[in-house]
């Protein structure tokens, strides 16, 4: 017998007389009316910056962030209209720009797909994430129940990289970006 069969047979033996517990249903998703307000509030509480912008506003936000920088790393889904700086590899870029799969108000989270490019999401010290307004879900449960297919990896980011491991003092930007900026894009892109 191999390890798998031995482990499974021990489990079956252990469970032989144990009453089976039922699996509870997921709770009904709670309807929240002011999703956007909550999302921006929670982002701020997480130490991130959130902006609700139209096309023009998005260009301006990017131009502000880009000031004085030699270039940026871009995720695959970033529209050409927002590629204002020359492209640099993520290892060298002072700014990374990604497009999120979705966002969650409840936790102030942006969800990033591996299909957009992982290095851009992690290596530059500043990370700008674009997310369409209609992709902002009130709760994690609603977002998860709505996912049709899963990319090879999803990263949920809820604020800048941080650690309190050195003497309980909060330090930002330990491994990932020390600054997270989220632009919620109004309209269709």
């Amino acid at each position, binding site marked *: 017998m191999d390890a798998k069969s031995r482990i499974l047979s021990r*489990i079956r033996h252990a469970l032989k007389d*144990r009453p089976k517990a039922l699996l509870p249903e997921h709770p009904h998703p709670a309807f929240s009316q002011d999703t956007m307000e909550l999302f921006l509030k929670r982002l701020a509480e997480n130490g991130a910056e959130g902006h609700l912008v139209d096309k023009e506003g998005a260009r301006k936000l990017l131009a502000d962030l880009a000031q004085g920088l030699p270039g940026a790393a871009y995720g695959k889904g970033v529209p050409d209209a927002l590629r204002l700086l020359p492209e640099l590899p993520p290892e060298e870029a002072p700014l990374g720009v990604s497009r999120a799969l979705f966002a969650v108000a409840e936790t102030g989270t942006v969800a990033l797909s591996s299909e957009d490019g992982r290095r851009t999401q992690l290596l530059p010290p500043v990370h700008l994430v674009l997310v369409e307004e209609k992709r902002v879900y009130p709760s994690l449960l609603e977002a998860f*129940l709505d996912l049709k297919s899963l990319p090879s*990896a999803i990263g949920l980011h809820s604020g800048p990289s941080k650690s*309190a491991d050195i003497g309980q003092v909060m330090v930002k930007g330990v491994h990932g970006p020390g600054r997270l900026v989220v632009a919620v894009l109004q309209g269709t892109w």
Partner: protein
Amino acid sequence: MRVKAKLYPKEAARLLREQPGVREAVTGATLHFEANRKRAYQEIDAEAWRERARRVKDHLLTHLDHYLELAEKRLQEKGVQVHWAEDPEEAHRILREIVARHGVKRAVKAKSMLTEELGVNPLLESLGVEVYETDLGEYLIQLLGEPPSHIVGPAIHLALSDIQRLFHQRFGTPLDASPEALAAVARKVLREAFLTADLGISGANFLVAETGTLALMENEGNIRLSTSLPRVHVAFVGIEKLLPRFADLALFLPLTARAATGQRLSTYVSLIQGPAKEGEEGPQEVHVVLVDHGRTALLHDPEAWEVLRCLRCGACLNACPVYRQTGGHPYGYVYSGPIGAVLDPGLLGLEDTYPLPYASTLCGACYEACPVKIPIPKLLLAWRNRAVERGLAPTWEKGAMQAFAKVMQSPSLYRLLSKALRGFPLPQDLLPLLKAWTEGRGPLQPSPKPFHQLWQELKE
């Protein structure tokens, strides 16, 4: 890892004598975590969340064979290579083969308690692989050659000054370097490691059976980097870490974060479905090693199996007045605090861990904190009963308890004895039990009047 749980009382006493700073550091950190957890629980219907989580976990555990097979199937469909390991030796063999096949020279590791159990670091070092712990706290204790002292904050027993001294010796930073400056040094070393490692090693907070999703929680970003940059990723997963459905993560991720650190969600969550697809960045190979190492034996135990619901959030450690005194090291194994006191005997046997179930005041704070409602006080008593039954507890304990019960059940005997005590004080230094008590406190002095007399006077 070497188990030193038998030495618990001695080691705890030694630590309190020789390193009083540890108590201060651990108490400070745990009180902070505990306050955050309480605030985070108040924001939700904590009772409902915990009850739901308990039920999901109980369903999972009572159908574990089914869900393990389903998880394996889903993982394989996504191109993940699944391995099963009964014990550390089998886990080592699997890892050794992967290291040899890919000619691994350097590995980056994400913090994982299971890999501590399995002794992954010493194995890799013996194979000539350079291993970097990449969680900042874990990196600190790796530099010091110490085991973790807390499930979530492995280095909470260290004061800033300890770390300043360590980095001064290692990297020549000034003795008064700020936490930011120290973190910057570590970041530089570890960034280089991420970019050059051939292998990334992690544990898993959850493995979803329905989709074969590995879920990993953290705040620093080191886990996302460890599982994104190297071309091979190996995840060690305890067989109890499964969840039935993908959407169950919507309950378990925020609940674990709230219990552990008081956050609504940890800063980074990685949900991994498999190796990178054509033209995508990410590891070319992903391996999942499903590990038993004592868990099936625990599942078999009708009195102790509930401990397998544990999410390793550390909330019970933060709530525990006993843990706060010394931190985790005296417990002598990977898992310390209340969860260690009921998990370690199950994983390793009571013979090797006998004193741990006694490392508690039975105050119940651990149960109140636990996100999956593990009845830790009840489990502690079950293990204590077994210790007495198996003759592990000293025989005088059983005798003393029986005598105590007899006296307490008989009013006349009680009166007689308390009268005698007032007349002839106890030979305090002769009785070993009382000696242990009086050493730290001063002599026991019976009240001059019995309680029932005082009560009578009060009523009049």
